[in-house]
């Protein structure tokens, strides 16, 4: 089978999935560009009487999209940093060092992974209120970091154990200290794993909803999912063209970052698997 034939077969197999995945984007764009009076017209059409790009600008101004975008970026980036700073040493210890209580520690992590924020939301809220962190972005940073900890440690540890120990040992023989071999030899090799893990944590934080709903108060600190939910949450009125414009803007940057990171990831993974 030639490469061309194989590609055709693959695309045929993937096409139903691709249609279902792309349909919401088409719907978002279609509704986002309709004039208000046509959003509820019957029968519905894909394209309105005009392509009303002004909806995006109006949505941006009337919903406070900008501050929410900033809040989402700040929270996701900070949560990723917090989570990795805590997870990297723990994963190294699990992958390289033998110590009493190692199994217990691994089990503890597994238990934290099983808890979804929604199950603990009452307790988390009271904790944050007691610490004065309600309506502070830090509350989200800490909880997102904590709820991703187990996953990050697992991911890192499984990659770390594929990095040959001999390289570090060689560095020791060459006279490097433990810290030097860690930062100069081990971490550079572990970078692909760190990058992959960062993406997981970042996406989780970018998309999280229940905790943001419970912990945030001021509309200008709403993360994007919460902001968009607040646009449909009003009982009296929903401006669907704004909702769809906002959803489109909130998902396109991630999609672009994704397609960029994806190439990076593939390269990173192949470098990481050099034996």
């Amino acid at each position, binding site marked *: 089978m030639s490469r061309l034939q194989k590609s055709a077969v693959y695309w045929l197999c993937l096409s139903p*999935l691709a249609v279902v995945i792309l*349909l919401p984007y088409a719907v978002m764009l279609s509704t986002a560009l309709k004039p208000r009076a046509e959003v509820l017209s019957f029968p519905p059409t894909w394209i309105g009487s005009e392509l009303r790009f002004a909806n995006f600008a109006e949505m941006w101004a009337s919903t406070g999209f900008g501050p929410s975008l900033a809040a989402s970026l700040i929270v996701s980036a900070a949560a990723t940093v917090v989570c990795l700073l805590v997870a990297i040493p723990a994963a190294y210890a699990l992958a390289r060092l033998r110590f009493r209580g190692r199994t217990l520690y691994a089990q503890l992590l597994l238990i934290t992974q099983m808890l979804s924020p929604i199950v603990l939301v009452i*307790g988390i809220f009271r904790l944050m209120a007691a610490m004065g962190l309600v309506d502070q972005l830090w509350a989200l940073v800490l909880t997102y970091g904590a709820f991703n900890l187990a996953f990050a440690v697992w991911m890192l540890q499984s990659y770390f154990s594929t990095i040959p120990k001999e390289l570090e040992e060689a560095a020791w023989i060459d006279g490097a200290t433990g810290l030097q071999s860690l930062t100069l030899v081990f971490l550079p090799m572990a970078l692909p794993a760190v990058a992959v893990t960062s993406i997981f944590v970042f996406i989780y934080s970018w998309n999280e*909803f229940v905790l943001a709903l419970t912990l945030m108060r001021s509309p200008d600190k709403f993360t994007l999912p919460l902001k968009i939910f607040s646009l449909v949450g009003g009982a009296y009125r929903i401006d669907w063209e704004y909702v769809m414009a906002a959803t489109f803007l909130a998902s396109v940057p991630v999609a672009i970052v994704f397609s960029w990171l994806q190439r990076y990831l593939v390269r990173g993974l192949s470098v990481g698997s050099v034996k």
Partner: protein
Amino acid sequence: MQRATLLPYVMILPSVALAIWIIGYPIYDVAHTSLHDVNRFGQVREFAGIANFAALWADPIAIASFWRTLIWTVAVVGGTIVVSVPIALMLDDDFIGQGLARVIVMLPWAVSLAMTAIVWRWTLNGQYGMLNATLFNLGLLDGPVEWLATAEVAFPVMIAIGILVSIPFTVTVFLGGLASLPRDIFEAARIDGATAWQRFTQLTLPLLRPFINIAIVLNIIYVFNSFPIIWVLTQGDPANSTDILVTYLYKLAFRYGRLDVAAAMSLVMFAALLAFTIVYAWMVMRGRQAEAAET
């Protein structure tokens, strides 16, 4: 030598501290709440023993939600794994447009579950949703279908959406696994004349199994606790016939003000997941030992 034995503990200490602080304390708080009579506003009154658990047991909606959660979890996770393995194999292979295909498959991940559900709610609307309009134009429908009006239609639709949004994560785990497989073994197998199917069942699947196991465990935890899809699309309607445990938990806690019963429900859910994970880990371990004994 002292330093060497302390080192691992120093390294895990920050993670233990963070987990106890942000997750451990709320567990204690929820457990405490579940054993007391607590009003709508979280003010703890007298000790209630197991009264809250008894109330849960006597609530037919809670029991029905439990069984529905099982169906939901098994259907979404099972569907996801079955669909994701071939997708990952294709995406791992070299073909024209591979990069584009990867981006498309990963796209649902770029949108928050809450947002995805909002868009689907709008798309599925019987009167002005684009799905009906498109099917109608294609001649596949002769009148509006209310996709979310009955559980018989709404629940499978939501399961399908659940599968769709679980694919990107699962495929990523599998791709990571496939990338770590030693290529030379496959090359050798091909030279030895193994067919593609033989290579898949005898090399790829066994080597991929740890990753499949991880994907199953993590997906079950995510899907069991998944809230936004059902909450946004049906809120458990009609007549609680699409409620799963987390949506009913949310109603109990925040709509009906039964914080104490909701806390009891949280603990029961946690215990169910814990039991599942222990049993699953035990099965995986036994399977591995059996394999080791054979070779």
